[in-house]
C-alpha cells in the first residue's frame, strides 16, 4: 500500500508541473502568428455562429462531411469560395449570408490560409517517429 504522503507528493508534483506548463503555453505564442484584421476575427466568430466546423476541418480537426478548408483560400481561390458561400451545394444549405458576412468569412479563410500549411503530403517523417512541417 502506498503511503498518503507519497501519494500527495506525486500528485503535488504533477499538478504543479501541469499548472506551470499551462501558464507557459498561455504566454508563449507559436512562431509565425500574425495579428488578424478585425473583419477576420468577426469571420471566425461567424464560422462558430454557423457551426461550419460540424462539416469542415481546420488543420484536420472538425467534421468529416465537407473538405478541410485550412488552405482553401490559396488552393481554390476567393471566387470559388465565394460561389459556395453564396449558393450552398447539394449537401451544404444556402445560409443566405449577407455580403458583409461573406466578406468577413473570406477574410477569416485568408487569415487561416496564412497561418500555416495543413497538407500532410508536405510533411517529412523522421526515423524516431517525429514529423517535420
Amino acid at each position: 500500500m502506498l503511503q498518503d504522503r507519497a501519494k500527495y507528493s506525486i500528485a503535488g508534483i504533477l499538478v504543479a508541473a501541469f499548472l506551470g506548463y499551462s501558464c507557459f503555453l498561455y504566454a508563449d505564442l507559436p512562431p509565425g502568428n500574425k495579428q488578424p484584421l478585425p473583419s477576420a476575427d468577426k469571420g471566425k466568430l461567424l464560422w462558430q455562429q454557423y457551426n461550419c466546423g460540424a462539416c469542415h476541418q481546420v488543420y484536420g480537426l472538425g467534421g468529416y462531411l465537407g473538405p478541410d478548408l485550412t488552405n482553401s483560400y490559396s488552393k481554390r481561390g476567393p471566387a470559388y469560395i465565394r460561389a459556395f458561400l453564396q449558393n450552398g451545394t447539394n449537401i451544404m444549405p444556402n445560409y443566405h449570408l449577407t455580403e458583409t458576412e461573406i466578406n468577413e468569412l473570406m477574410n477569416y479563410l485568408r487569415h487561416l490560409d496564412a497561418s500555416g500549411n495543413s497538407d500532410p503530403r508536405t510533411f517529412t517523417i523522421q526515423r524516431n517517429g517525429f514529423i517535420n512541417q
Partner: protein
Amino acid sequence: MDSSTSKQSVYPVYFIRFGIILLALGMLFGILGGLQYAVPGFLKEVLSFERTRPLHVSSVLFWIILTATGAIFTYVQEHSQRRMYSTILIKIQFYLLGISILLIMACYLAGMFGGREYWEYPPYLSVPIVLAWVLLLINFIRTVDSFRNQPVYIWMWLTGIVFFLFTFTESYLWVLPYFRKHIVHDMTIQWKSYGSMVGSWNQLVYGAATYLMCKISGNQSTAFSKKAFALYFIGLFNLMFNWGHHIYTLPTHAYVRQISYAVSMTELLLLGRIIWEWKQSLSAVLKFRHIASYRLLFAADIWVFLNLILAIGMSVPAINVYTHGTHITVAHAMGTTIGINTMLLLAIVADILKHQQQGNSVGKTGFWLANISLLLFWVSLIVAGIWKAHWQMSANPPAFGSMMQQLRPFFMVFLISGITLAAGILLILFSLLKKELHVTSNQDF
C-alpha cells in the same frame, strides 16, 4: 451534514434516468447523422448536419456526465456509509444542468450556435454548467470529509471533478481576444483543454467502474494497492500532458509534439498490463459471468484493449500524419465513447438499478447485438479512414466529392451497424428499465 430529508437518494437516480433519455436521443440523432452521410442532402433544409452533429455529440456527452455524476453520488454514499453533505446542492445541481441541457438542445434545433466542437451552443449557457460543477465539487469534498487513506476511486472522482472544471473553463479562453486572435495559439489551447477534458470524464467513469469491480469481487484491497495507484498516476500524467497528439499537424511549438509523443508512449504500460493479466481477467469472467454488470465490464475491457492499440498507434506522429483528419479518428472516438464509457456506465446503471439477475434473455440479446454491431461499426470507420488517408496522401487526388462517393459502401455498413448497435443498446436499456419499474423502491441505501 444535511439530514433534513428522507428523499435525498432519489436524485442520483434522477441523474441516471435523465442520462438514459439523453443516450436514447443521442442514438436517434446519430442515426440521422449517419443517414446524412449515406444519403447526401438528406433533411438538408429541415435538420441539416450542422444541427444533427451537435445534437448527437452533446446528448452522448451529457449521458456520460450525468450518469457518472449519479453514480458518484450513489457510490460515495455507499463507500462512506453516510448521506451526501447537502440534498439542496444536489437538487440545485440537477436543475441547473437539466435546464441548461434542455436549452442547449433547443438552441441546436433552432440553429443557434456560437461555441465550438463539443460545446457548440451559445457560450453563456456554460455559466450554469460551471456553477453546477462547483456545487458537485463542494458536495463531494464535504461528503468525503477526510482524504486520508482513501481508495483509488475517491482519488479518481476528485481528479475528474477538479479537472473537468478546470478544462471546461479553459476551453472558453477563446472569448478573450488575446487567445482568439492567433489561430494556431488558439487551437493549441482549445485542444489542450479538450484532450484533458476527455481524460477528466474518463476518471469519473473509470473510478465508478473500479468501485463496482471491487463491490462485485468483494475485494476492497485492490483499490488501495500500489498497482492501482501506479495506474491512476499514469492516467493522470496522460490526462495532463498527452493532449498534443490531437494537434501534431498544427504548426505550433515543436515541444508540444515532443512532450505529448513521449507521454503518450507511457500508455504502453497500460497495454502491457492488460496482456499480462489476461488469464486472470478470463478466470474472473468465468466466476462472475452470471452478473449483468460484470459482463458489461468485461466487454469494456476488450474495447479498452482494442482502442488502446489504436490510440497508441495514432500517438506516433509518423502514423498520425496518415490517420489525422480521417475516419480512423472517428473510430477511436466512437470506440471509446460507446465501447468503453457506455459499456461501463451501463454496468453501473445495472448495479444501481438493482438489476443483476440471471437469464435475462432481452438483456443478453442486446449485449451481443450491441457488441457485434459495434465491432462492424468500428471496422467500417477504420477502413473508410484508411481509404481517406490514401486519398489525402496521393500525388493527384480526385475531388473531395468523388472520394466521399467512393466511401459510400463503408458509410452504408456504418449506418446499418449503427442502427443495430442502437437497437442492442435499447434492448439493454429496456431490460434495465423494465426491471426498475417492477422494483417499488430501491432508492434507500
